[in-house]
């Protein structure tokens, strides 16, 4: 009730002052994974307020919604387990033992869950129904991020410690290729029949041919290009640059730079709110930033230590 009253007052004030009607913050719950605090912050998106922390066991990093939308999976690496959370409330549904789950991803057809074991140099493919391990691909060094081809036939995995990208055929469960793509490759994204790889040891995103694994182009974004995300309308490619402390917006069609925003404190993962804001975790600042792309301003909310993965559920209602 108090929130509604404050919004009404704000709207009325702006109307009287001729400023137009301000944008109301999107409602819902935000989930932020605090890697070094072993917890997941549950945040009321409209109130900008942390409601509670769900305890993990040791060191959670990334999270992913199941294809049926019934569970939010959080990988706890040194805890060697995946937490299944209720995406509407954050309540723990169950904990499943899984070896070193760092980055998680469901294939677009929903058949496979691919789990990168960063510390154990393994890429595991699980059957999503039984959560049974189908195949383990040992890799050269630190499998970090992943992306699928739209037909679900191939998964691409960055090998952060070896400067390479690896491709695995999920139909035959065989390795396809492992090719150099630049120093310390991290974020991976499929875009317009190419694979984009953010190179944290450089200032660019490498454009890779998915068939051969060869680099065809470099797109300069900023020092320490770490992770990249496509906006929900698929028009903007967002890149976080770890060393520069910036977030770059690129035209997703042309890959031309549109604008760069200063987001200090180790910008890492991004999720998109329905109101157009970007929620960005800041690894070294114990904060999540809410960037308003139109103005370039950002607000912050205090969370736990080393916030990493972030996921927004606008459909959830605050208790």
């Amino acid at each position, binding site marked *: 009730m108090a929130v509604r009253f404050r919004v009404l007052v704000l709207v009325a004030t702006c109307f009287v002052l001729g400023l137009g009607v301000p944008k109301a913050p999107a409602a819902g719950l935000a989930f932020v994974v605090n890697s*070094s605090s*072993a*917890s997941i912050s549950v945040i009321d998106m409209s109130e900008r307020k942390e409601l509670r922390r769900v*305890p993990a*066991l*040791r*060191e959670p990093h990334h999270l992913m919604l199941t294809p049926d939308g019934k569970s939010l999976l959080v990988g706890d*690496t*040194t805890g*060697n387990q995946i937490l299944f959370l209720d995406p509407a409330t954050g309540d723990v549904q169950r904990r499943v*033992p*899984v*070896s*070193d789950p760092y980055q998680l991803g469901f294939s677009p057809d929903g058949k496979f869950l691919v789990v990168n*074991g960063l*510390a*154990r140099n393994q890429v595991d493919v699980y059957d999503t129904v039984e959560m049974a391990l189908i195949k383990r691909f040992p890799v050269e*060094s*630190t499998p970090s991020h992943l992306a699928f081809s739209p037909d679900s036939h191939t998964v691409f995995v960055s090998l*952060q*410690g070896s400067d390479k990208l690896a491709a695995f055929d999920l139909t035959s469960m065989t390795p396809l290729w492992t090719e150099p793509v630049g*120093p*310390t490759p991290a974020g991976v994204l499929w875009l317009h029949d190419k694979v984009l790889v953010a190179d*944290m*040891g450089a200032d660019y995103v490498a454009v890779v041919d998915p068939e051969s694994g060869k680099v065809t182009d470099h797109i300069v974004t900023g*020092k*320490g290009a770490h992770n990249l995300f496509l906006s929900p309308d698929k028009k903007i490619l967002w890149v976080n640059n*770890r*060393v520069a*402390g910036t977030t770059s917006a690129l035209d997703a069609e042309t890959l031309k730079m549109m604008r760069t925003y200063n987001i*200090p*404190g*180790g910008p890492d993962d991004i999720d998109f709110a329905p109101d157009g804001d970007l929620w960005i975790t800041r*690894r*070294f*600042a*114990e904060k999540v930033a809410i960037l308003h792309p139109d103005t370039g301003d950002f607000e912050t909310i*205090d969370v736990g*230590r*080393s916030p990493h993965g972030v996921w927004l559920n606008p459909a959830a209602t605050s208790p």
Partner: protein
Amino acid sequence: MVDPFDLAAGWLHETFVIPVLYAFGLMRWEELAQGWVLFVVYGAVQVVLTLAICLPLERWRPVEQWPDKHAVGVDIFYTVLSRVGVLPLVTFVLFYQVQVALNGWITDHGWIPPTLEGLIPPLIGHSLLTFAMYAVILDCADYWRHLVSHRIGWWWALHSVHHAQRQMTFWSDDRNHFLDDMIAFIWFGLIALAIGVPPLQFPLLVLVLRFVESLSHANARVSFGVVGERLLVSPRFHRAHHGVLAHGRRSCNYGAVLPWWDMLFGTADFSDEYVPTGDPTAEEALATGSWFAQQRSGLRRLWLTVVSGGKEA
């Protein structure tokens, strides 16, 4: 509530460490470096905190006064090397890697890696209580390691580097032979692995326990009273362990943080004395030599003990 040490480490990491890693093509170590910087900060804070508490205590009620404090200077070198440099690096990087490999292997074989929270599920989410329980278990394990290091000849030869100091101060806690330190770390690490200490807590546990250990070495006439002496190891309690007549297998009060283990296993001495410290059987280099001379002398004593079939101790 934000953690000021974590924020300070984050600032150091972003401002100084990351640019260096980037410039030298070492960004693959960025994530590990982040953890290491945090424990360097904790180590530095711990040294400052130890100074702030122990220095006034030693000035207020010193047990002994020395005109020449050269031997104390060497102990300061030991402390800085250990707590700000080597300790965070070894405890964090090495323990992390070993635990990841071991627990991943255990999970792969269908078992659950051992943790206190696994044994007592309500502990999940109560990190302070869990931290305290891990500290108590590790302190008990350290009691036994310490006691055995006094009973086995070759081990005592190494450990005597620690006991040879006649000018014992709060800096003396880290005065150890590097082989003795290594054995202690392996023992400590194995126990921590067996009970599932979180890798991000392990270096912090070491630092917290070491803080109490520093205090217990202080050259201060400080006792915690009849009850307090039985709750936490005091400078008086630990001084008895370092007494000139208590070297080698004749010693007492082996507990590092909690005196409970000495009380439980019959090795406690609560007599109200502040005895002179040192090892009369050690050669002079062990007491007053440089860091290098002490390490070399410790190795020589080890060698003599081994070739004499343990009689040297």
